[in-house]
């Protein structure tokens, strides 16, 4: 059902011009933006040259027909997500285009080392704030940052998670600014999602364009599940020989349900909901047709507050009564560990350079965006006076919800944001508006390639003695012209991301 380019029944010679490539003939470059494939002088960057030549031999019509076929394959496989806040909730496919993003080995090396560095530092930070709290006593991080965070769990004080690992899985959101440097926008260490799209994008691209993919030596992304499973198994409770691993999902109405089922399937483990598990004498069991089966490691895609109604939110029907007591006793491992969310609070993000320095005695490999804390009176004053040139973010929301971008607001909206920030300053931080790099992206409406802002979410798996970063990651595209928010829940799309071997 998929047609490689060389099977497309068009006479490619007919469409070739000697100067411009067909497919990019109407591509407009804004010189103020950092373009991932063109340099400042309008020359194609080296890593893209081969791709450009291969694609360039074809017309936009060829591209459209292939792209549509790839999209329908996403629908047929049920690779969908849901957007909240809409009145009519609907399943959507994650918009995808066949023009990949390519990352050269030297660039990837920075991203990979930087992602590992941050994951390790965050893990040490979590251990510290749930044990001796030295970083607070040494006044590197202010105490109220932790204690006023809704994600700090008192119940985790003094708990030693197996292998000392809290953030087994981290999603680091990296962008390239127009200064050509990499910056981290967010560390997601609660239940970061998106990795299934990385693998599905690759599968779709390879099916459609094997003839092109084949010309590059690209790292595989399909080894994620095996690395994740190996990590989860290594985090097994004491005394367990071969651990029984499961993935727990809030259920089919969750926006990331496809991913939960995908990961369970590719790891070859059971996908369960809370009602499929029960706790007896502080051990966790799964109900099966052959009777109860003990569960040792749970990759949980349910937020802390919902994992156990007896310990946390009593109204939760998603969790398992007694699960936390079983965890605390060391009879089951939860990944990520409960209480991990305190470290992906956006206010903690702002201290990442200091956190890295404090625990690892290293300089941050990836830059942090300068952040203003609205909880500090002088910074609040600056923020209120400069809202038009800042991004205002709530500290504890994920998925791009509640973000205001100053230069896109009307006067009335600015006043509204000001009032909200003034009312609860601790809830907000502000950052300069970063100019995310742009990448040629196929736009349905105009049937042509246009510049769109992109970011990259990397996936890091952290174990006691090993770490793994998926060599690829999810390039997210803001599909609305000029839009800077790339989250899928905010109408973003994605691209396959090629990390080259050489």
């Amino acid at each position, binding site marked *: 059902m998929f047609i490689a380019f060389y099977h497309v029944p068009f006479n490619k010679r007919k469409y070739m011009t000697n100067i411009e490539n067909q497919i990019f003939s109407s591509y407009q470059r804004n010189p103020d933006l950092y373009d991932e494939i063109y340099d400042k002088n309008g020359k194609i960057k080296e890593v893209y040259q081969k791709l450009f030549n291969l694609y360039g031999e074809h017309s936009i019509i060829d591209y459209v027909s292939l792209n549509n076929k790839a999209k329908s394959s996403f629908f047929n496989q049920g690779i969908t997500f849901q957007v909240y806040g809409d009145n009519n909730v609907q399943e959507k496919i994650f918009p995808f285009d066949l023009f990949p993003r390519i990352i050269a080995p030297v660039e990837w090396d920075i991203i990979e080392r930087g992602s590992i560095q941050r994951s390790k530092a965050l893990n040490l930070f979590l251990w510290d704030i749930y044990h001796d*709290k030295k970083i607070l006593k040494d*006044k590197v991080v202010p105490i109220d940052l932790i204690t006023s965070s809704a994600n700090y769990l*008192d119940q985790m004080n003094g708990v030693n998670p197996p292998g000392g690992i809290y953030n087994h899985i981290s999603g680091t959101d990296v962008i390239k600014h127009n200064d050509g440097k990499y910056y981290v926008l967010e560390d997601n260490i609660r239940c970061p999602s998106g990795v299934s799209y990385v693998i599905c994008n690759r599968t779709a691209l390879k099916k459609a364009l094997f003839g092109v993919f084949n010309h590059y030596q690209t790292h595989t992304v399909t080894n994620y599940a095996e690395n994740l499973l190996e990590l989860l198994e290594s985090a097994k409770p004491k005394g367990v020989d071969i651990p029984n691993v499961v993935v727990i999902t809030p259920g089919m109405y969750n926006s990331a349900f496809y991913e939960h089922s995908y990961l369970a399937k590719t790891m070859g483990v059971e996908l369960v909901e809370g009602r499929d598990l029960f706790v007896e004498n502080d051990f966790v069991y799964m109900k099966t047709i052959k009777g109860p089966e003990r569960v040792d490691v749970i990759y949980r895609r349910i937020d802390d507050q919902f994992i156990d*109604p007896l*310990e946390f939110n009593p109204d939760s029907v998603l969790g398992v009564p*007694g699960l936390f*007591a079983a965890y605390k006793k060391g009879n089951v491992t939860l990944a990520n560990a409960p209480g991990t969310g305190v470290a992906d609070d956006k206010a903690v993000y702002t201290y990442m350079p200091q956190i890295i320095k404090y625990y690892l005695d290293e300089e941050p490999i990836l830059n942090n965006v300068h952040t203003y804390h609205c909880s500090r009176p002088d910074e609040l004053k600056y923020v209120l006076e400069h809202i038009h040139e800042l991004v205002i973010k709530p500290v504890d929301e994920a998925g791009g919800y509640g973000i205001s971008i100053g230069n896109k607001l009307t006067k009335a909206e600015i006043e509204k944001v000001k009032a909200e920030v003034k009312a609860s300053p601790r809830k907000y931080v502000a950052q300069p508006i970063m100019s995310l790099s742009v990448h040629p992206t196929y736009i349905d409406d105009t049937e042509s390639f246009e510049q769109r802002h992109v970011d990259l979410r990397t996936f890091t798996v952290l174990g006691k003695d090993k770490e793994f970063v998926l060599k690829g990651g999810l390039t997210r595209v803001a599909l609305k012209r000029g839009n800077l928010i790339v989250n899928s829940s905010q109408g973003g799309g994605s691209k396959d991301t090629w990390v080259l071997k050489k």
Partner: protein
Amino acid sequence: MPREFEITYNAENIYDDWVHDAHWQFLIIPVENESQYEVEFEFENSLYAHTEESINGYGFKTLRIHPKKKFKKITFEAKFKFKKEEVDPYNFNINPDISTAYNELQSLDFKITHERYLRFTSYTTLDSAQQQLFKFNTSISIFDNLEALNHWIFEYIKFTTGVTEVGTLLKDVISKKKGVCQDFAHLFSALARINGVPTRYVSGYLDQESGYMGDSQMHAWTEAFVPEIGWKGFDPTNNILANTNHIKVCHGKDYNDCSPLKGIIHSHGKHKTAHSVTVESHQ
């Protein structure tokens, strides 16, 4: 000579409709500490469901029941026996140089160590006017201030049942000036924390032989951390310090951490719940 205590805890839940799935977690076992020991218990329910012992997120022993059959009514009975030493709450000395203790309250290490019990929760939050209700007098010791606070709350709030309920917040307690032991304990916790003293809400039983106030259910009081002395129990409901008659079960930031009974019940329709407690002691 230690005293021997016997406590009986009864609970009864009646539902209009059949309940097919239910979990209960009881936080009612007297904690073992330096004055309470050799705790023994029996726990029974009318459905003969298996009882599991466990430990909650804050380290206190719990009992859990998960009946395997449907029901409309379930009753629970717990009997505890244990020994308790005579407690003299005034068995300590106050450093005549009171400033060192006040200085300690201000130190960062102290604030970090006791952070959990200095935090304001929904049950222990006061608005700025209410925060002024009781100001410490720094010319007397922290302990003396806490005792004065204990007395002040005893005078300020009139012990009245049926006016407040488990979810009542301090703003309502203060406007009504009426409440039960839970409300007294929350108000003590909040006003001590405002003055920099860590406090923990305590859930337990009270031997009412000597005519103390409380109802015939569980009791609540507050422990405050006094630098150079340690945790001391204050019972503002009765204007006394916690003594031999106060049998501690657990402590936490507020009632939420100490709720004696948590139930996850999947059922429709109305239900009725009743609890009763009797405490007996003999030498």
